[in-house]
C-alpha cells in the first residue's frame, strides 16, 4: 500500500522514529536560524552580550542580511563623479577638463536596459554615495570639505570608495587619452538633490567634495 504526496508515490515502509526525530529537529533548526537572523535585524541587543560574538561568527558572512531597499527613507540624490588628470607637455603641465564618469553610463543604461554599463553604474553610485557619507558632517561645510580633502590627501589615508573612484577615473582617462602620460588624477564627488538645477559650475554645489590630486593609478582594464 502506498500513499501519494505531491503526486509522488511514497514508500509503504513506515519511517523509523529516529528519522522523524531528526526531521523535526532539522526543521526546527531552520526556524531557529531565521529567528536569529530576524533578531539581529530587528533587535540586536536582545541577544545576550556573551553570545554576540558567537552569533556574529555564525551569521557573518554567509547569512547576514539587511533589506533596507530604498527604505525607510529613499535616498533622493543624484550622485556625480568628475575626474581630471594632469599630464606633462612640451611647455610644462596641462590638465584635462573635468570628465563626467556617471552620466555617460546612465545614458547607456537608459538606452539599453541590458547594457553591461549597469555594473559600472552600480560601482560608481555606491562609491560616490559612501564617499560622501564617509566625509560625514564635515562634508556639508566649505571649510569642512577642505579638512576632509586634506585628511584624504594620500591614497593610504583614503577610504576604499575614494580609491575606487580614482582608479576608475584613471582607467577612464587612459582610455579617453591613450597617447597622454598622466601624472596625477583628481576626483570630484557631488550629491545633488533630485530635480535640482543642472550642473553648471563644477565646484559650487552644496555637497561637493574636491579631493586632492593623487598619483595617476596604474589600472588594468582588459
Amino acid at each position, binding site marked *: 500500500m502506498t500513499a501519494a504526496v505531491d503526486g509522488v*508515490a511514497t514508500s509503504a515502509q513506515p519511517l523509523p522514529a529516529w528519522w522523524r526525530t531528526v526531521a523535526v529537529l532539522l526543521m526546527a533548526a531552520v526556524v531557529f536560524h531565521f529567528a536569529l537572523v530576524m533578531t539581529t535585524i530587528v533587535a540586536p541587543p536582545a541577544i545576550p552580550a556573551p553570545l554576540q560574538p558567537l552569533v556574529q561568527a555564525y551569521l557573518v558572512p554567509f547569512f547576514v542580511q539587511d533589506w533596507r531597499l530604498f527604505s525607510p527613507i529613499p535616498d533622493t540624490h543624484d550622485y556625480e563623479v568628475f575626474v581630471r588628470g594632469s599630464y606633462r607637455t612640451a611647455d610644462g603641465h596641462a590638465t584635462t577638463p573635468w570628465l563626467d564618469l556617471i552620466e555617460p553610463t546612465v545614458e547607456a543604461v537608459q538606452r539599453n536596459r541590458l547594457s553591461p554599463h549597469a555594473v559600472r553604474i552600480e*560601482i560608481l553610485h555606491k562609491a560616490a554615495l559612501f564617499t560622501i557619507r564617509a566625509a560625514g558632517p564635515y562634508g556639508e561645510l566649505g571649510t569642512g570639505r577642505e579638512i576632509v580633502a586634506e585628511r584624504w590627501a594620500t591614497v593610504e589615508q583614503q577610504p576604499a570608495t575614494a580609491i575606487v573612484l580614482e582608479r576608475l577615473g584613471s582607467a577612464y582617462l587612459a582610455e579617453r587619452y591613450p597617447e597622454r602620460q598622466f601624472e596625477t588624477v583628481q576626483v570630484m564627488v557631488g550629491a545633488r538633490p533630485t530635480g535640482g538645477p543642472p550642473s553648471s559650475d563644477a565646484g559650487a554645489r552644496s555637497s561637493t567634495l574636491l579631493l586632492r590630486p593623487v598619483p595617476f593609478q596604474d589600472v588594468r582594464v582588459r
Partner: protein
Amino acid sequence: MAGLATERRLIGLAFVRIVASLVALVYLLGQWPTRHLIWGPDGSYPTWLFERELPFMPAPSVLAVSSPVVFEALYHLTIAVTICHLIGWGSFPIRLAFAILVWSLLRRHPYVMTGGDSLLLLAVPWLLLTNTGAYLSADSGWRGIGAGWRPSARPWRALLHNVGVFGLLWQLSVMYLFAGLYKLYGAPWLDGSAAGAVLRIDRFSLPGVSELVYGSPLLSAVLTYWTTAFELTAPLLLWLPATRWLVAVQSVLFHGGIGVTMGLVTFAFEATMLQFVVFPDTSYRRLSARLSARLATLVRYRPRFE
C-alpha cells in the same frame, strides 16, 4: 512527515538553477571585456585594497589573487563551471564549485553587489542541500516537466533536500517581510510619494516613463502603497496554496517593472527566481499538460494555405 521523505519542488528548483546560472553568465560574459577592471588584481578594487578592507568586510573570495594569470584562469574556470551548472551536468561537485566561485565573484568587489545578488548568495547555502538537477538537466537525460518519472523514496537525502527547500522559502519570506517593515518607518512610503521620489533619481529613471509616475501623485501613491502591501503580505501568502499564485503574479509584475523602469535587470531576475520554488511539481505538470493540449489544438486546427 511522510512528505519529507521524498524530494519535493524539483521542477521549481531546476528553474532556479537555470536562472541563477544565467545571472552569473550575464556578469561573467557581459563584463568579460573589462573583467580586469572590475575584479582583477590591478583593477578598480585591487587585491591590496581587498586585503586591507577584509577585517571590516569579512567576506573571503578565491578570486582575490595577486597574479593576473591566476585571475584569468579562475575567471574562465568560473565561466566553465557556470555553464556546467546551467545545463545541470556534474551533480554536487559542480554545484559546490558554482557556489564557491559565484560567491567569490560577487564578493570580490563589494560595490558590484545589488540587493538581488545578496538574495542569490543567501540562497546558495540552501540550494547546496537540494537536488536542482532532477529535471531539465544533462544529469537527468534532459527529463522534461511532463515526464512520468517520480523521485524514488530516499528518506535521508530527501530530508536534507526538503530542509533546503524550507530554508529557501523562509529566506524569501524574510526578504519581503523586512523590506516591507522598513517602509512602515519611512514618511515617503506612508504618504505615497516614495515611488515618484525614487523614479526621479537619474540613475533609476527611464525617460518617457518615469515622468508619468512622478508627475502623477495618484500613480505614485498607487505604486507606493502596492509595493508596501505586496511586501508585507507576500511572506504569508506565498505559503498558502490558494494565494501563492497571487504572490507569483505580483512578483513578476513588481520586479519586472523594477527591471524595466529602474534598469535593475539582474535584480529583477534574482528576486523573482525563488518564486519557482513556491509551487509544487504537480502545478508545473498541470500547466505543462494544459499548454501541450492547447498547442496540440492549435496545430490541429491551423489554417491550411494551399
